């Protein structure tokens, strides 16, 4: 499929200007999303709904490429097949990137394919798509990324690229539904209220102790904290990201059903629980906080005293289910 003109012209609908047409379904998605209460795209926003596997089958790409993209999709939605090798917790990529990484407001992954290589504050250098994917393996999956250029890494990258089909490289417009947009931060946030809400709305799936649920070695409900969850270096430990994720995606099937206050309270509660150490740990929580506070942990509760009992969060050397702290892909780059 070729890149087409702004669909607003074709469809005669007035409300988005810079839309890329990837499937026939874009209007369906936007109608559904706005009816659920998500904002409609702003005039200057880039709207892209990625193609589906069905579109893949129908496309005229080389069958071998299709096979590799399908493998990337399979790895993305069943990342547990790399358990013990690259993944050391109960997550799949799709545990946080809902709808196979395609959904707006659920950090759709295709923007990485059209905005990278780019500078990232988190590691203070220019990153490639593979390095971005490696980041989620290191932190969100508490693991060790597949080697750069390996079959699995290439398959995952191909899946990301294909999702971005038809979008211009380095787009100038802001992207509709990118990331986990945080609701407005309320004046105060309460651990107790968060705990109560967690019991009422989340524990039925994620368990009273955040353990989630697995059956026959398959993750049904991922673990929001503990050894089988994301580690202290993951994007999700930023309370704003977690509040944005929860508000826009949880409880499963009922997005935007919590108030902004509730989303922040429950995110605060969830991220006040223990999880595997930040792979960038220097051996001392205060020192690690000082080093990575300005670029990262200023948004998390790492190294802080927990509101409920005064326990210092992240003050341990527990790496979860893996027997190493930091994979060697976490390293500075200077281009010198």
């Amino acid at each position: 499929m070729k890149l087409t003109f702004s669909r607003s012209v074709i469809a005669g609908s007035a409300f988005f200007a810079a839309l890329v047409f990837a499937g026939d379904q874009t209007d369906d998605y936007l109608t559904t999303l706005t009816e659920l209460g998500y904002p409609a795209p702003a005039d200057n926003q880039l709207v892209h709904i990625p193609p589906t596997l069905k579109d893949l089958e129908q496309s005229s790409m080389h069958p071998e490429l299709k096979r590799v993209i399908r493998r990337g999709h399979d790895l993305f939605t069943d990342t547990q097949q790399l358990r013990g090798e690259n993944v050391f917790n109960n997550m799949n990529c799709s545990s946080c990137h809902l709808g196979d990484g395609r959904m707006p407001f659920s950090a759709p992954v295709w923007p990485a394919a059209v905005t990278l290589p780019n500078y990232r504050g988190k590691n203070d250098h220019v990153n490639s798509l593979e390095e971005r994917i490696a980041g989620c393996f290191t932190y969100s999956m508490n693991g060790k990324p597949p080697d750069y250029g390996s079959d699995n890494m290439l398959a995952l990258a191909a899946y990301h690229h294909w999702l971005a089909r038809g979008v211009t490289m380095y787009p100038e417009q802001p992207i509709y539904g990118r990331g986990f947009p945080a609701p407005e931060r309320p004046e105060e946030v309460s651990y107790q209220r968060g705990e109560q809400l967690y019991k009422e709305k989340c524990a039925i799936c994620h368990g009273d102790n955040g353990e989630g649920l697995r059956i026959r070695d398959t993750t049904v409900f991922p673990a929001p904290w503990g050894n089988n969850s994301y580690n202290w270096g993951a994007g999700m430990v930023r309370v704003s990201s977690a509040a944005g994720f929860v508000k826009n995606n949880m409880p499963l099937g009922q997005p935007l059903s919590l108030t902004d206050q509730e989303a922040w309270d429950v995110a605060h509660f969830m991220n006040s629980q223990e999880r595997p150490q930040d792979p960038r740990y220097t051996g001392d929580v205060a020192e690690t906080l000082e080093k990575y506070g300005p670029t990262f942990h200023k948004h998390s509760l790492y190294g802080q005293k927990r509101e409920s009992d005064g326990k210092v969060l992240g003050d341990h050397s527990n790496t979860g289910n893996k027997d190493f702290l930091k994979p060697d892909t976490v390293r500075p780059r200077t281009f010198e």
Partner: protein
Amino acid sequence: MLTVKHLPTTILALSTLTLPGWLQAATEGDASRGAEAAAVCTSCHQADGSGKHNEQGESWPQLAGLDAGYLAKQLRDYQSGRRQNATMKPFANMLSDQQIVDVAQFYSKMAPRPGQGGESASTEVLQRGRILAQRGDWSAYIVSCQSCHGPDNQGVGTVFPGIAGQHAGYIVAQLEAWQAGERTNDPQDLMGTIARRMNDDDIRAVAAWLANQPPAAELEEIQP
């Protein structure tokens, strides 16, 4: 109010393993006593618990192999009116609290049989059904059935019943009951939210596909 009502279910839901011994004993039924109490149920649910898909009238759900806690909750919900069905209500009302856990235990131990009612569906319909069951349709924010009903839609614990191998007519009736507000006994409206987003074609497609799938695998060794 809602929360208080749901609390017992939530406790049951969190893997029975974590329950203290005494509580487990109190909630556990006796399958042989259950067999006696279930004598009146066989005219519809059949002697082997397999139920029946009825093309014209109401279908009778397969009960064999469903989770005991789930079955008991349904029977209590018919009694209290949180789940409404004119055919089933009088039979639920016949049962004492003890008989409820007994029949639930009895049926949960039976080996399920293949589901009925999906045999004549076209490939196209089945394909649509498979997508809904395994991947969902995010253009309508229909989350895949298996993200709650578990791998192969064979059920997860007490809260999320197995729906693979259930009869198509019954699945259709339930989804329509949720749409019509006649079934509101699901915790946190989790199922109602999804059902209300489905259209008639979706419902028929997913019901046909699910009916053709194997029910709970692990129960195969257990004899009725």
